[in-house]
């Protein structure tokens, strides 16, 4: 099997220059948005 057969796509990422609290908060929001859209 190859990586493409098992990987999870549509990954949420954060920006390097964000504060850790804001990054975690943004990631949670995007997670929610993706869950709502899909």
């Amino acid at each position, binding site marked *: *099997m190859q990586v493409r*057969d098992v990987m999870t796509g549509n990954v*949420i990422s954060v920006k390097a220059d964000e504060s*850790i609290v804001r990054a975690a908060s943004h*990631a949670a929001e995007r997670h929610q948005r993706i869950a709502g859209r899909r």
Partner: protein
Amino acid sequence: MLQKDISGLPVVDEDGDLVGMLTEGDFLRRREVGTERRRAEWLEFLLGPGRIAEEYVHASGRKVEEVMTRDTVTVSEDDTLETVVELMERRRIKRVPVIRRDGKMIGIVSRANLLHALVSLARKDQTLAGDDAAIRRRILDAFAKQPWAPQVNVVVKDGVAELWGTIMDERERQACVVVAENAAGVRRVHDHLVWVEPMSGMAFPSPEDAKKRPTPISTVTAIA
């Protein structure tokens, strides 16, 4: 991260290129909770001020780039799972970002993804049928078209589709099974979706898996 059960996040720069990973492990040694690394003075002298300063930034930093783990290893979607496992063991990491040829991140492969594949393969000892990848693609495409669909991972083996992931509403379970059943080439669908009840955080396995273990399987309530 705690609320959404996210244990690790890829970090990208302004161009969207991967520059590091931010994981729960990066928050273990933190000044705020008094867990920053402490050493004997003679050892700090041996390590030198540069190393100590680097650890200070990691333990006290407020920005993602100050806390994240650099030197991120990656794989391509063409790599074998053996390559991934070797990397995970050698680097003692739990997840590896998947990078396209142009350097953009297209996904992530975690230990959970490997376990999903292992469980599916263990149930049948035949090799992957040639059409399974196409069936999997069709199922994932069908999920992508549904506005209600949760993030579901699909493993297909000999036309049998296994659904893995988390749902927040029990009614999504049957709908997910129907999506998979309607994909051409699917002979049978196994439901391994875990329902997380939003109010209590209790996690319930699928009826199929519940026969093998008592419910609920766990709580996902985070301990601050």
